[in-house]
């Protein structure tokens, strides 16, 4: 009896294997990962890309001098090491020997020099050229004040050595070189193909993957770069489908057409207990800013009262995405994060400040309107703030919402008394968040500026000792979030994802940069096709690493 059953199983197995062989499709050994992109990448030119969609593809096609580890520390990538010379003013990067482009040509420091000068060239019209304004003469060259690119402080000393001269010591410079805009590009390819150089038939890359297919508006497919010198990735094919609607992406995940997906806020509660659910903080802060140039918010007591009157602990409940309420501006996961800084909820103190400003119990307070750009989440937050200010200050404020670009133009021409904005980190250094409100920043819509604050920010950027930097940023945060209060920090965002259980090696980081080269498959027995499990067959997709 037993033997007969075994034989039957064996026959079935044999049949299965034959079937698999005949169909020409390997069962579950496909080393492909499929993900959703939030839209068509506006460009795959590292010098011109400014958005997350393009960046999430580019980060897998190219390799810069440095890359991030899980804790967002810059670690060597194309550079083997670097020296900091002249008191932090000069960086000398040494490239790993033997690195190649996808067409086999050796990677040279000259490729970096070309890429950086191209980024800064006013003809390129790159929106992110300012990322390299710390480099000597970079800003002047970009503005057209210097015509010759040879004056710019980046130079290939040899095939493997790249010298970068900075305007002033810059503590976070190795973080900047993880960023897409600093990636090397090939002069001959760009000159031969012009703006079509990023099409699959022309594109030459130096990262773990090459661009195999780009069906515009539909999908981008990456294949292995045969000349990549680093460890060969397990995943041989990465397909990004452009799916703008998060609920659609979730459907595709459910039908096993995607391996990873970002969860829409309304679906989070349904998946929170799933083993596939992954949540991690994201370096993006949301705040409400005041127009400090106009009454009533030109009075710091009123600004402080408004900040003290918000119970932010309810925000995660309202937004449902596990957002982290914040009183300070530097987000969790970044150097100098300090939850002890800032104005915590204190309605009694808020009312006292308001009374001192001449509005006891909110009486006589002028009519003001808080303005935000139209999204469901922004509306929820605005309504909550409105109710908090009414309850704790006795002030009824109006709400107004606008379409995004409309809103941006309103902010730059005539900032409303209170407005919502956010900021996502370009590189994980507090300077990127704190210099937002410096006097020289073009992004500061509050009209607030403070010489003491500016001086601290400037010093902190040049300081090389971490302990001193943290102290300086603590001081600056106290000015920003406790003393002057041009903004009320509200919360730090999170990323909520579903990742199939058989996909391993996904190491999330707070920049939400997803390197595909570390991913691999590991099938659990439960994940096997039922017939395989019944027949006791070995797992064909078992990954060996």
């Amino acid at each position, binding site marked *: 009896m037993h033997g007969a059953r075994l034989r039957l199983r064996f026959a079935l197995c044999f049949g299965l294997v034959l079937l698999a062989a005949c169909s020409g499709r390997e069962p579950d050994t496909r080393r492909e990962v499929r993900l959703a992109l939030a*839209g068509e990448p506006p460009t795959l030119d590292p010098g011109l890309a*400014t958005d997350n969609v393009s960046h999430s593809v580019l980060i897998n096609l190219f390799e810069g001098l440095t890359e991030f580890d899980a804790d967002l520390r810059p670690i060597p990538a194309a550079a083997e090491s670097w020296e900091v010379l002249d008191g932090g003013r000069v960086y000398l990067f040494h490239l790993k020997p033997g690195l190649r482009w996808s067409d086999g040509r050796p990677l040279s420091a000259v490729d970096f020099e070309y890429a950086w000068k191209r980024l800064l060239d006013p003809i390129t019209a790159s*929106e992110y050229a300012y990322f390299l304004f710390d480099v000597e003469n970079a800003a002047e060259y970009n503005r057209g004040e210097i015509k010759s690119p040879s004056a710019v402080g980046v130079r290939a000393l040899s095939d493997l050595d790249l010298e970068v001269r900075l305007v002033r010591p810059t503590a976070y410079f190795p973080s900047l070189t993880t960023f897409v805009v600093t990636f090397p590009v090939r002069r001959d390819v760009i000159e031969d193909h012009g703006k079509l150089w990023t099409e699959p038939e022309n594109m030459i890359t130096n990262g773990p993957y090459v661009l195999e297919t780009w069906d*515009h508006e539909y999908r981008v497919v990456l294949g292995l770069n045969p000349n990549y010198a680093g460890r060969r990735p397990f995943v041989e094919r990465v397909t990004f489908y452009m799916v703008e609607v998060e609920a659609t992406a979730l459907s595709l995940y459910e039908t096993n057409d995607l391996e990873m997906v970002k969860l829409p806020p309304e679906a989070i509660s349904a998946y929170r207990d799933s083993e596939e659910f992954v949540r991690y903080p994201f370096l993006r802060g949301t705040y409400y800013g005041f127009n400090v140039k106009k009454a009533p918010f030109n009075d710091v007591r009123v600004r402080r009262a408004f900040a003290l009157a918000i119970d932010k602990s309810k925000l995660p409940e309202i937004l449902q995405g596990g957002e982290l309420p914040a009183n300070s501006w530097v987000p969790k996961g970044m150097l100098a994060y300090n939850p002890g800084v800032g104005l915590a909820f204190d309605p009694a103190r808020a009312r006292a400040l308001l009374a001192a400003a001449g509005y006891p119990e909110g009486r006589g307070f002028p009519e003001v309107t808080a303005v935000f750009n139209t999204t469901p989440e922004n509306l929820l937050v605005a309504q909550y703030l409105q109710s908090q200010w009414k309850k704790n200050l006795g002030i009824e404020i109006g709400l107004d919402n606008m379409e995004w*670009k*409309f809103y941006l133009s309103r902010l730059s021409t005539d900032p409303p008394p209170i407005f919502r904005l956010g*900021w996502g980190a370009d590189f994980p250094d507090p300077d990127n968040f704190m210099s937002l409100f410096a006097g020289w920043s*073009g992004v500061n819509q509050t009209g607030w500026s403070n010489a003491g604050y500016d001086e601290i920010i400037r010093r902190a950027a040049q300081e090389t000792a971490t302990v001193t930097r943290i102290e300086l940023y603590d001081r600056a945060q106290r000015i920003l979030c406790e003393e002057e209060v041009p903004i009320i920090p509200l919360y730090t965002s999170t990323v909520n994802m579903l990742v199939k259980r058989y996909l391993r090696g996904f190491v999330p980081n707070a920049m939400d940069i997803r390197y595909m080269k570390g991913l691999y498959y590991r099938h659990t027995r439960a994940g096997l096709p039922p017939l395989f499990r019944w027949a006791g067959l070995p797992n064909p997709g078992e990954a060996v690493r």
Partner: protein
Amino acid sequence: MKAILVRLLLAIPVLWGVVTITFLMLRVTPGGPFDREKVLPPEIKRNVEAQYHLDKPLWAQYGLYVKGLLEGDLGPSYKYVGRDVSRIIADTFPISATLGFLAFAFSLSVGIATGIVSGLRAGKWEDHLISGLASVGFSVPSFVLAAFLVYILSHWLHLLPPALIGSWKHFIMPTLVLAAGPTAYIARLTRANVIDTAVKDYIRSARARGVAEWRVLLQYVIRNAVTPVVSYSGLVLAFLITGSFIVEHIFAVPGMGRFFVTAVTNRDYPLIMGVTCVLAVVIILGNLVVDITLALLDPRLRERT
């Protein structure tokens, strides 16, 4: 033939009007293509705007655009760096058009067929069923219908993929959702006309002359009943083949319809102009085809033109 030529010539000032009005409306709308959360430093914004001639006075920009248009150049997209609008339209329009024609064929065949059945069996259960379904198809918003179909056909029955393209199966749900409204409308239109025509004197006299019942239906009732459907279908066809924002969005179909919304939110001026021009041309052509078809169906119209 001469009438067709005149119509085509008349289309030129219409198109020119569309281009000019759209161009001006875009420039009046607040917010520009390079307004960002991460505000660009002024020198960089200058470089970018110079690249797209946005630093020139408005009349010069208009002149450049019209000149390009006459040379068949719709300009570069501001959002999709390095891609020309003509290229983007050439990539996406065929997909929208395929979906649109499928939906159109479905609406016409199913709409007319059910409308006839419903009209001939007016007041009977078939009529109630069809009219009921038509009311649903007409009034349920397409995103609701899409979500419902995805739930039933993809998640529950595992019959169809929930989104993307790649096989014929992928086209079924988008086609159904796109066709729902027009099908329902055509069914109701046909039903009303069938009921209306069936009591006309010439039908009675045809029957009295002993014309076979199927001939009465086919040659007299139906032929007359579909005329209003034909005039309606021109505009429907134009909108169906230029794509639908909602359907393409929900089913992740890489068509042109999404740009009617996303290009506006991005303030991608040349792309908005491009898709608007395509829509205008298609509407003009659609109406022309309708008029020709009507002339073929109705000899009286042919004599007049």
